[in-house]
């Protein structure tokens, strides 16, 4: 039977909602699911992890090193806990992508990046070519399976559990060669892009940072998270953590509204699993209309305020 260890994602000592997506994937694999939470102090993150349905136990590893999450100091701690587990999983976030290949290399095993479907304990689908093709991969033999979970492909798990929280100490030599100097996080009050049910995104067509208020305003009206194309980020309209796409965030909201976005394949790679895609663009030939469930040709500066007023 599978015994799965999930590396929790934390941000500022709190559990990040993407951790639940990894639990949802583990539940499909089946077997026992434990979560390891690495934080500076005991508390909030581990308690939140214990509530995730399907989790057997939470291993809380609290030490000063974990005040700053760095791959080089986290990976050896994960490996120190790995004994006895058949699978080690994390969400495919920038943190998961940073840490898990290090875990895999320490264990001398390959990694399955971006698991999007489970076909068996050791057989999965994963996207290649920015999601334009899907590889079904199998891990032959019985080496520890290390993988990251595509958060857009799995639902949220309920939070009615009450798993035991155990203090775990790890004896691993942690390197001193990597120091966190600082973080600039956007945050804000809008729903988290990767878990939001609705997202409104703006592209180059929005034209400027000031004009982006049109997008924010519409998003706030419907309680949506806010995203952007790479062109909008590169033009300095909005910060990079809002980028949706192959090299930004891969998301699966129930509703995605693309405003002034042409629909380049790299952008579409980020929204393939969205429920309903709405596109608003002046160019009737924009490729975004090929994937949109509902398309409206029109000027965003006219359409968005009208839409906001009508909702």
């Amino acid at each position: 039977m599978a015994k799965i260890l999930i590396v929790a994602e934390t941000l500022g000592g709190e559990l990040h909602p993407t951790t639940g997506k990894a639990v949802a994937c583990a539940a499909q694999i089946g077997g026992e699911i434990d979560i390891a939470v690495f934080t500076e102090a005991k508390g909030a993150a581990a308690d939140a992890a214990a509530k995730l349905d399907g989790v057997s136990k939470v291993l809380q590893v609290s030490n000063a090193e974990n005040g700053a999450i760095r791959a080089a100091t986290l990976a050896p701690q994960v490996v120190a806990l790995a004994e006895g587990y058949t699978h080690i999983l994390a969400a495919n976030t920038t943190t998961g992508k940073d840490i898990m290949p290090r875990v895999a290399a320490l264990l001398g095993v390959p990694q399955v990046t971006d698991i999007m479907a489970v076909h068996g304990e050791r057989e999965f689908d994963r996207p290649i070519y920015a999601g334009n093709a899907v590889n079904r991969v199998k891990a032959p033999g019985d080496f520890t399976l290390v993988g990251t979970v595509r958060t857009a492909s799995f639902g949220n798990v309920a939070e009615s559990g009450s798993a035991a929280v155990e203090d775990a100490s790890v004896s691993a030599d942690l390197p001193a060669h990597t120091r966190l100097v600082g973080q600039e996080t956007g945050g804000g009050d809008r729903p988290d892009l990767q878990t939001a049910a609705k997202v409104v995104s703006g592209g180059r067509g929005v034209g400027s940072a000031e004009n982006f208020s049109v997008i924010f305003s519409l998003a706030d009206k419907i309680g949506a998270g806010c995203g952007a194309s790479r062109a909008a980020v590169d033009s300095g309209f909005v910060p990079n953590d809002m980028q949706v796409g192959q090299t930004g965030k891969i998301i699966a909201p129930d509703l995605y509204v693309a405003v002034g976005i042409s629909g380049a394949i790299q952008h579409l790679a980020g929204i393939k699993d969205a429920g309903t895609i709405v596109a608003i663009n002046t160019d009737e030939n924009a490729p975004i209309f090929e994937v949109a469930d509902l398309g409206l040709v029109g000027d965003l500066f006219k359409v968005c305020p009208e839409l906001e007023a009508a909702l």
Partner: protein
Amino acid sequence: MKALVPIKRVVDYNVRIRVKGDGTGVDLNGVKMSVNPFDEIANEAALKLKEAGVISEVVVVTIGTAKAEDQLRSELARGADRGIHVVTDEEIQPLQAARILAELVKRENADVVIAGKQAIDDDNNQTPQMLATLLDWPQATFASDIKIDGGKATVQREIDAGAETLEVDLPAVISADLRLNEPRFIKLPDIMKAKRKPLDKVELSEFDIDVPKLEVVSTSNPPAREPGRMVKSVEELVAALKDKGLV
């Protein structure tokens, strides 16, 4: 200071790929191939550091078929000093690539590796992190800014929550994100010059890449979306959204 820049030959990012009917992979026949865009950025970063007097030599490395020499030559034309081509027709997985690169880093006595953050064919995003681990080096992935000074690299990284800055002791592995720079254009005379730059061919058999591998069972198209429809007005859009229970 010597920099090693691993580059991969991949399908050009503008190509709409086609999955083969029999599920055995993606059709590469007659498809335009290019340098992985992140690797162009990595090389550009190394070249900028060379121009700033921080790095003295930039060595570009590729592991791939005989044809991957084209991509190595184009990065030599961009300005790298020397190339190493590990020639193989085998499909090399990230842990194997990392083992080959780790061996080359030791042979070359490199002080820093600047790689792409991910190859846009398999989208694995693993090799630089694995390489750093095998060498027991620090890593700074998804870099949007690199400063090297006094045996340390200060790297700004793109993370889901925004940005962060790491300081790592050298030697280190750095992986490049899109916003690190805009690679310079390659000029025709430089393409000619690059033909004469040193390029070593190395046999795959020189490396120990006997590690567990993943098997690809089949390749398929992603699930197709239902065809959509165009609406004529905001009212019609709102009605459709209400109908679907989305607003």
